[in-house]
């Protein structure tokens, strides 16, 4: 569904991604792991067009998207839940969600999607008239996911969705992702909580200094003692 073929990206003179290749097959959950500064966020930003790769080497459903601006990439069916959520804090919950559906105009569809998101996260329905900035951290993360879903994506990119969340909420968020995937959503997940991410995903990539250092089926990786030792820390 999504293919990156030797993608390079730069920040100024910093070579942030070096020949990164990865595949996300339709209907799968793929996780992208690695230390800080390894290039995970850069990868996701490059996919959605917020960073530019140097060549035309990213394909979504067979179509090159490396030259397409971000707002059009959303229309193709890719949505991102950004690191640190990036909500519109002074707008109401419901307005944040409607902003997520900005690229689509059909009001009836919009209402249907709102209902779907409210059933996924009932607490958002309760607080739909509140300012987004007034929500707790967990609720804000649910809103960020809800907002991304409003664009009706087929591929959902999540950049550290459990950052700063209490254990109970982390479980809920992972539960929701599993459910979304069972309903057919393809997911690319960046996560520091590597063990959880390996449990949830089918396939994983490890980034190191802007390169793919290791990849494989998640079950295989998490059972590998060297991986445990060098990437996952002592548990």
């Amino acid at each position, binding site marked *: 569904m999504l293919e990156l073929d030797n993608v390079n990206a730069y*920040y*100024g*003179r*910093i*070579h942030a991604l070096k020949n990164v290749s990865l595949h996300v097959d339709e209907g799968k959950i793929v996780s992208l*792991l*690695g*230390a*800080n*500064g*390894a290039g995970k*966020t850069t990868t996701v930003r490059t996919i959605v067009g917020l960073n530019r790769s140097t060549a035309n080497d990213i394909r979504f459903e067979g179509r090159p998207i490396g030259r397409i601006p971000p707002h059009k990439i959303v229309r193709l069916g890719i949505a991102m839940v950004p*690191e*640190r959520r990036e909500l519109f804090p002074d707008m109401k919950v419901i307005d944040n969600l409607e902003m997520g559906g900005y690229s689509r105009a059909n009001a009836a569809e919009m209402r249907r999607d709102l209902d779907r998101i409210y059933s996924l996260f009932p607490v958002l329905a309760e607080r739909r008239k509140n300012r987004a900035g007034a*929500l*707790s*951290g*967990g*609720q804000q993360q649910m809103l960020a996911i809800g907002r991304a879903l409003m664009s009706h994506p087929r591929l959902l990119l999540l950049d*550290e969705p459990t*950052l*700063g*969340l*209490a*254990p*109970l*909420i*982390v*479980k809920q968020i992972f539960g929701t992702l599993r459910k979304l995937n069972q309903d057919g959503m393809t997911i690319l997940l960046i996560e*520091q909580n*590597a*063990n959880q991410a390996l449990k949830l995903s089918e396939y994983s990539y490890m980034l*190191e*200094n802007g390169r793919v*250092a290791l990849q494989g089926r998640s079950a295989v990786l998490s059972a590998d003692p060297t991986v445990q*030792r*060098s*990437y*996952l*820390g*002592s*548990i």
Partner: protein
Amino acid sequence: MKLPPRKQVAFGAIALVLGACASAPLFLSNYPLFVLSLAIVNTIAVLGLNLVMGCAGQISLGQAGFAAIGAYATALLVVNLDVSYWLAVPLGASLAAICGYILGLPALRLGPLYVSMVTFGFGLIVVIIVQNWYELANGPNGMVVPPPVFFGRELFPREFHAAIVAVAALLFLLARNIVDSKHGRAFIAIRESELAARGMGVNLAHYKTTAFALGALYAGISGGLFAGLAQFINPDAFVFPVSILYVTMAILGGISTLVGAAIGSAMLTALPEVLRGAAEYKDFLTGFLLLQLLIFLPNGIVGFVRQHFFGVVPAKAGYSSSGRVATHEVLPTTLQRRERSKNDTLLKVESLSISFGGLKALQNVNLAVGSDEILSIIGPNGAGKTTLFNLISGLDRPTTGRIVLDGADITGMSAHSRARLGIARTFQNLDLFGEMSVLDNVRVGAHTRLESSLLQAALRTGAQRAEEARYCDVAMDLLRFVGLEPYANQKANSLAFGHQRLLEMARALASAPKLLLLDEPAAGLSSSELDFLMVLIRRIHEEFGISVLLIGHTMRLVMTLSNRVIVLDHGVQLADGLPAEIQRNSRVIEAYLGTDDA
């Protein structure tokens, strides 16, 4: 230390320009020389603007008003009271500085938009006053200023040029010294984040008013020199468009760079002269050129040159991400171990409550942090943990209750005073000074430990230089300690999220605190980085003798490191006990941990 090539180039260029300016009377005829003198006089006003706007981030639209005060005060003193011109200029500039200080006061309470309106209004009022002040200032007709007298001889503008160059060079040097000191860093810190600056012990009131006073002082000197150069002043020279012209000069050159002030002033002073041939299209061409420059050089000319010729050097990772945690044998010896407080209890919080609107964010919370303890606070999102940190560090005031540090009641104290007393913190959502370098962020952290005054910094006294160098080493040691040394010269906002967290920790440590408040230090760290963090926190506690109060969701961190754990839920203290007790507590499991293992 040998100068890096970038600095060598910069110094060479400045020396060359200065030499050319000083020797200009030898090869320029009267009129071009006058234009050059004027450009240098404008540079001085724009330097002031660089300090206020570029560094401290306070928008000032009244710079011409301050120049008017300097010019008119100088002229009136010379004409009416027979004061020497060379004394009248500093007196006039001091008056302008006092006005600037007073004008800075509203900036303490008002937002940036209102402050800019206040300075705008001030500039207008000054002009209206001199326009209508017939008795003294001859109203709109202006005043003739006698030529400055130097050892009994009246100076021609050609000769006066030398004085202008000398004063400008001196003021440039002083401004550079200030920017490159703890005071300059405090200005920039305020621009980048007032909240974090307060947390580092920066007194906002002091620095904002000082910034305005400094900016006005420069404008006042510029006005005084203008009076001596033109030997005639009228209100038209100080109208609002002139203030805007100064702002444009600053932005065109590069607002946060001092060299930019000279470049912007020179270009915009010379431009009308260059376009003189195309008289009727002059305004149009000026506007068009400016627009082009600002579109294509958003960071000004100096910003453009820096970006394209002196780009950031790529850094190597501080520790390998293959998970082997680098052990940092280098202990920051410069950060001496603190004597343990004689009191057993370092921090005591007594029946603390706070409400926001109708929401009771904290209700009757009691806790004590021992002088040799790592205490953790856990609880669901929205439980009030960060609010508790805000109360302890002084960013919010409690509705009721008391906070006692080392035996002294600090409940009513400002955030920057508490930082001085030894409370340092990190922020949950990160609050770095993003545009400053990684190293300078840590140096701001040491703000309260540097004692040099603004004057000492401006004059760069030996003691001040030694102090700056010492704390630069401390900052570097701390960066090494948290593994960020290779990134020292990068901008803070270019770091990955987890590295920004470590930087916040180094910045907090730079103040040599007694109590370190860490708000979710592990969020955004991978498992192997978490191992590294745990080593760091343990060393901070054991080797530096700092007590740690920690908010965390990462159970491995909390349960391994803490002596004690406190659980908050909906603003109420749910439990307080040893890590093992907390993990078995059924109410905690229900509210926070969930049913199976976390």
